[in-house]
């Protein structure tokens, strides 16, 4: 039988995990909305210049869906979190390539909004999801 301090510890850990999950959910909502907007922009450009949908439009749409699915199933499914990590990793790798190109060609960093939406946002999501999964007593509800 759990002692009183243990019960308090479990409750504190659950409250902490719940608070962090709330932050993750709003960050994922913003990221998903940005990916939807990006899909529409890419779709319009593809229709205007390529005459049809291109693989990048489909990949962006797939990333948006993956983010929203992960947001909905963050608490219950490990595969949803893994898919989310893959999407965030792709975003970060592409930003790394863009930053390298920008530094080499123009000797400047990428625009600040790109840093916010493609570095701060995904890194925050990865870090917070990681903290939530590592929180003691969290395996039962998050795994």
């Amino acid at each position, binding site marked *: 039988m759990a002692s009183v301090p243990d019960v308090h510890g479990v409750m504190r850990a659950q409250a902490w995990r719940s608070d962090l999950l*709330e932050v993750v959910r709003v960050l994922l909502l913003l990221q998903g909305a940005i990916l939807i*907007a990006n899909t529409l922009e890419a779709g319009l450009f593809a229709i205007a210049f390529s005459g049809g949908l291109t693989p990048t439009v489909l990949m962006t749409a797939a990333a948006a869906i993956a983010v929203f699915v992960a947001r909905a199933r963050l608490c219950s499914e490990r595969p949803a979190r893994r898919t989310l990590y893959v999407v965030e990793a792709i*975003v970060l790798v*592409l930003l790394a390539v863009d930053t390298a190109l920008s530094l080499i060609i123009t000797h400047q960093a*990428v625009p600040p*909004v790109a840093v916010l939406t493609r570095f701060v946002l995904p890194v925050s999501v990865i870090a917070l999801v990681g903290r939530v999964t590592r929180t003691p007593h969290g395996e039962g509800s998050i795994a």
Partner: protein
Amino acid sequence: MSIGSPLYTLEPEHGAAFVALVLFALGAWLFRRRIPALPPIDLLLAALLLGSSAVHLGLAIGHATAGGAVRLLFLADALALAFIARRVLSGASAGRLGLAVLGGSIVAYWVATAGGEPPDQLGLANKLSEILAFAIAARPATPARVRSATGSVAVMLLVLGTATTSWIGAFRASASEPGAVAGHHVHAGSVAPPGTVLPPATTREPTAAESTAAEGLLLATRAGIARYADPKVAAAAGYHVAGMSGIDFHANNPAYEGDGRVLDPARPETLVYAIAPDGRAVLFGALFVMPKIGEPGPAVGGPLTVWHAHQDICFSLTPPALTGVLSPLGTCPIGSITMPLTGEMMHVWTVPGAPQPFGDLDEQWKRAYLNANFPKR
């Protein structure tokens, strides 16, 4: 000095707002021990509100050329955002007032940008942070599916609206420039459209020697590329004409792009075709590209022959193709990389009767020319 789109830069009159934001961040760090113990989501909301308040305070100071009413609105927004942040820090919710102030601030940005105010990085970052604050404030206090879904849809619409009005603002600001008017000053101006780097607008007229040189370049190019009116001949010379479509198809020649020759009328780096209503490919002209990024093109015809470059354009790797221009949201489509800058380039339009032989060719004129000379059979 060439000029890129303000969409990817910080406007000088937003400098004070940036300083205010940095000072706020510094102050928050210095007084971090006085920050009340609140759930992380509430601390994030308070930080976003106070950050936006600092930005609006800076905008009220920095917009020295704006009218008193505009500066007063910035100040009122700063005070309202600070008031809501104080409520959140005291443990209360942002409430409907919070949603109204944040929504009003975002819609005010839409009105300004859609009206032709060029958007910049500080404005966009500020709106994204306000949308995130709106997403937090719109969360239902207790699990409620309908309200949660409504809040999510509202956040998506706010992001879409911000992106759309930013595109409109960036293009409208550029379209109102004298360099955007069809004529010999085309492709110059102090506000470039997104994805383009332009030389500054010039008001001087070309000298007689420059006019003669420009005419010589046009005639030499017309003679040099005449044989490529047949796309099969162009293909045999190495131009990528496969998959030709639309009225602005650019067929590049990788061998000529890498040969180091500059402005060679017989070996332009790219040919421009249009597919006519009757289905045939019509050669409209050539695009000369400088071999190295950052190397200025020779100004043979002075203000008549101005060069431009492209910035922050998206290239797909699967398959290699142009997929757009860097979004106001800072993203290219997934699977694309951002090319920060291209080499300088210049169009020469050899098609008979072109209203302007250099720079941009009017889209409506192109269509009218094709319909008149190559009608649908």
